């Protein structure tokens, strides 16, 4: 083995250790606080429940005066599919919140509490650090999201009709990679910013829920005329939009006569794969560039700016 390849091997090993080292506190540390079960699995279910009851209330009122059993069954099937969409969207909300608050804002948070300078002095790649955060975050959030999903499906009697399990798994993981890639890119931007970072994360909650259709099928935008189509086009740059739509199509095939879907699940998966690659590459370059800029401007470790 040459000296060069031995050095490369050592660097890979070091970075893998860094990934595991940063993922560890997220997997183990967070679970040492049992209060997460209430705060992150039970409470989000209440938000989902509210949206479920809105659909039920609107659906029930829309049936006032309807006597045709076929029409009643058709309306109820549409409402049930919307309820299923809300439960799935509510589950994915956990990942979006994790991307915003535990990925994008994390380097800023580390700067505030004084850990960032320690990370910067360590000989690992910054991408390994972000990769570890993403891996730990994905695991931690998946545990919470699965809890929310299972309880949501049981409590609201959601009927799932899984048509293609492998495609569903592929869409889910690619969407997660794209989302966390986006988080890694935002994390590097936030490195340069001060409190704008916190406010931007707060700003990216409801507007993204709205654009990406966490509570309704995003394809519905296309029925809203020009502005709806414009919002939908912009929303496709957020991986959750197409990922969620593809998952809904796989789980609720034939819902609403297919009128509210955006594209086919396969095409949506392909686009999300492209988004994942683009975000990861962008994360690498923006991290290097903005770290350099932050060092030059002396903002890398300045707190409370």
């Amino acid at each position, binding site marked *: 083995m040459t000296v060069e390849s031995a050095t490369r091997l050592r660097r890979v090993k070091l970075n893998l250790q860094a990934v595991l080292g940063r993922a560890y506190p997220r997997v183990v540390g967070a679970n040492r606080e049992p209060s997460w079960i209430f705060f992150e699995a039970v409470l989000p279910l209440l938000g989902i*429940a509210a949206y479920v009851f809105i659909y039920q*209330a609107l659906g029930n009122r829309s049936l006032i005066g*309807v006597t045709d059993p076929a029409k009643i069954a058709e309306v109820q099937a549409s*409402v049930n599919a*919307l309820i299923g969409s809300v439960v799935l969207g509510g589950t994915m909300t956990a990942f979006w919140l994790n991307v915003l608050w535990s990925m994008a804002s994390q380097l800023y948070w580390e700067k505030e509490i004084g850990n960032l300078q320690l990370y910067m002095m360590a000989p690992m790649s910054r991408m390994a650090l972000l990769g570890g955060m993403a891996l730990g975050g994905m695991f931690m959030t998946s545990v919470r999201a699965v809890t929310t999903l299972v309880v949501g499906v049981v409590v609201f009697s959601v009927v799932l009709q899984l048509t293609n399990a492998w495609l569903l798994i592929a869409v889910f993981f690619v969407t997660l990679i794209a989302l966390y890639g986006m988080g890694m890119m935002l994390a590097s931007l936030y490195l340069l910013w001060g409190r704008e970072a916190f*406010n931007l994360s707060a700003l990216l909650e409801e507007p993204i*829920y709205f654009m990406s259709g966490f*509570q309704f099928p995003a394809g519905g935008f296309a029925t*809203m005329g020009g502005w709806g189509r414009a919002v939908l086009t912009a929303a496709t740059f957020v991986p959750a939009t197409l990922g969620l739509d593809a998952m809904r199509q796989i789980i609720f095939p034939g819902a609403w006569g297919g009128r509210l879907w955006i594209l086919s699940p396969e095409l949506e998966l392909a686009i999300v794969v492209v988004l994942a690659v683009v975000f990861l590459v962008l994360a690498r370059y923006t991290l290097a560039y903005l770290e350099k800029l932050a060092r030059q401007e002396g903002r890398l470790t300045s707190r409370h700016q």
Partner: protein
Amino acid sequence: MREHWRTFKIAAWLGWEMDSNWTEPALFILYSVIKPVASAFILVLMYFILFAATGRPQDPAMFAYIYVGNAFFIFVGGTLFGTFQVIQSDREWYQTIRQVYTSPISFYTYIVGRAASKVIVAGLAVVITLVFGVAAFGLQLSVSPWNLPMFVLVLFLGLVCLISIGLCLAGISFMTARHTHGLAEGIPGLFYVFCGVLYPLTALPAWVQGVGTAIPLTYWFQLTRALILPESTMQSIDTGLGSDSLGILAILVVSSLAFFLLSIGIFKLGEHLARKAGKIDMLTSY
């Protein structure tokens, strides 16, 4: 009393500076209203998509009910978050809780003061959301000048109630890890479900309706809607709370007072337990 007022004023100024001085005022206002307006848009889309999916005629009365309920719900999120996040932002983010806590002021009053700026910004967002609803979606409001004093009184009682609930959560936050965002998402979700904010209580299962009627915010939303929506809209929806406004106001007064007293008790208890466990200035970063 003068000490409390002084603490409130300075804490309110501090809260305003912390919330707004990171950017230009115009951008700050924009940031503050985009979230609630987007939240209203979610419901608007849900409403239109349900009727597009089912092919049934739309229901303007229900739309008005949902839209106004959601607009006033902005106060819930803003006020609650503005109150309980003080503990965690001072403790974990700015790490100034030691200095503030050991200064000769009432920490309870300090938190109320810190929440004031968020209440004001929430008020602005409510107005913008309602105006937007009227302009863009043809929302019909019916505000009589005779109802104005009653409206102000109801709004005041609602805010007292919300700040009291926020202080109860602040008391609990003394003992918990940094769950601000879990709380900010979850607790308003609790009221979203049980208080008939977006649908009448009658849409809920019977046992859940009982929970809703035990929460004062249910009456606050009912009174607020009755004061600003046309009578015909309210009459077409069975809210499950009746139409005796004075009776509902009496319930709101009594329950606001009860929640105020409860907030003092829970806040003091949380504070006591945190001091005993050495958690007043703990850091929970992972």
